[in-house]
């Protein structure tokens, strides 16, 4: 643990000085602030923000992490040549990437809400869950980036896979689900769709968030079917477990391939 914390600490120092992270934080500050200023009440702003979060976090986390890890490849080898265990180094690097990205995001989104005194006006629990889901997504996609980098030595290929993965989860997947729904619309397909939902961390995050809002109108076709299920305690538990598996799975796979 001591070694892991130290590695994470030094990496934190490196990353917090990078312009990338600064830009990422600034982006979220500006978007949140703009939405709060011009986007009507806190509720509406939160919903728009949610869509931005679900889109941007996976992309930035994946690309930033893969680029950073490929760049650090030789240095990671040098660290591995030290008397350090692989899993300690892995954990240190993982936390050293996921924590600054998470904290940066949470601060960038949270602070404008406090500044605009919008916390009180929005529904209770919505802002914390937005932050929580954002952080969870950051951990999921950092883990996926680790897996990609461990498996592919070729930088360009790795980056390509990262972007393809993002496209799949953020854009293509919903289209496929929709296609699936329209093909089998005459059948009772609630359960398979439920399974499909759990297979995409972004969809999962979206459902988890929409549960907090009182706007069923904004639920997509995919979500509408499942609202009933996800509103129950079981639904919440399943969602949380699935998100945790989405973090743990790639972490374990990445560590094995590391």
């Amino acid at each position, binding site marked *: 643990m001591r070694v892991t914390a130290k*590695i994470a600490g030094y990496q934190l120092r490196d990353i917090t000085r990078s312009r990338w992270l600064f830009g990422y934080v600034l982006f979220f500050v500006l978007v949140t602030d703009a939405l709060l200023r011009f986007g009507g009440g806190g509720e509406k702003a939160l919903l728009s923000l949610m869509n931005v979060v679900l889109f941007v976090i996976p992309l930035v986390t994946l690309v930033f992490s893969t680029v950073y890890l490929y760049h650090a490849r030789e*240095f990671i080898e040098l660290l*591995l040549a030290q008397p350090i265990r692989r899993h300690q180094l892995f954990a240190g690097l993982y936390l050293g990437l996921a924590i600054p990205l998470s904290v940066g995001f949470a601060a960038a989104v949270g602070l404008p809400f406090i500044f605009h005194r919008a916390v009180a006006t929005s529904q209770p629990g919505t802002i914390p869950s937005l932050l929580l889901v954002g952080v969870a997504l950051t951990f999921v996609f950092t883990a996926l980036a680790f897996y990609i980098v461990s498996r592919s030595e070729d930088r360009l290929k790795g980056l390509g896979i990262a972007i393809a993965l993002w496209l799949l989860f953020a854009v293509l997947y919903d289209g496929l689900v929709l296609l699936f729904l329209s093909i089998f619309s005459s059948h009772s397909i609630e359960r398979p769709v439920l399974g499909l939902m759990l297979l995409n961390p972004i969809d999962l995050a979206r459902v988890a968030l929409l549960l907090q809002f009182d706007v069923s109108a904004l639920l997509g076709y995919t979500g509408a079917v499942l609202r009933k299920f996800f509103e129950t305690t079981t639904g919440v538990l399943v969602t949380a477990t699935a998100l945790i598996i989405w973090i743990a799975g790639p972490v374990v796979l990445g560590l094995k391939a590391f």
Partner: protein
Amino acid sequence: MIAARSVSKRFGRLGVLDELTLDVSASRITAIVGPNGAGKTTFVKTILGLTRPDSGSIEFDGRAIGDDAAYRARIGYMPQIARFPENLTAAELFAMLRDLRPAETPVDEDLISGLRLSTELEKPLRTLSGGTRQKVNAVMAFLFKPDLFILDEPTAGLDPIASGVLKDKIRTERAAGKTFILTSHIISELEELAEDVAFVHEGRVGFAGPVKELIRTTRQDTLERAIAQVMMRGVAA
């Protein structure tokens, strides 16, 4: 000190090490030479446990290297390519490595002054030139007074003065009983340092033995010519 037995490694379809067998004696300077892509770097990485061989074994002081990372505390490694976290300074980098070791580890910082790095310590690593980064790289290998030094192409990218300083340092440590493994694709570069030489070609050891003996038996003037002679004979036979 190092005993490698039939070490093989493939990357996909490409065979890099092919049943490589080599002994490295303690308190000697062993030069591993061979053309680019011969498998030199892969071999030293397997000693460090960075690459796991597909078959074969490597012993360090009589103990097979495995998942236990502790033996690496006795090795100082200077990789071929020096790339560091961009936004850290060299001073922070040294502090980090020191931090990762037990507190009582003695530290050798001679090379920082020897290579005139003192003024560069507080600058972010990304602003340093390639040669300066290579110096930082060298300092790191010597930092913890290891028993075994593995220097992968140590003089590549160094200016003649720095290269001389490094070679003097290697001689000093050798005199103190330390073991060295140096690699280079330019045979003549390590000639003045090497006591033992291993010529690696296509993942195998073409020749291994003391330099003096090699030069005597082949009656050649330089190591390069002696190895060429041995290789020619090998092809003929």
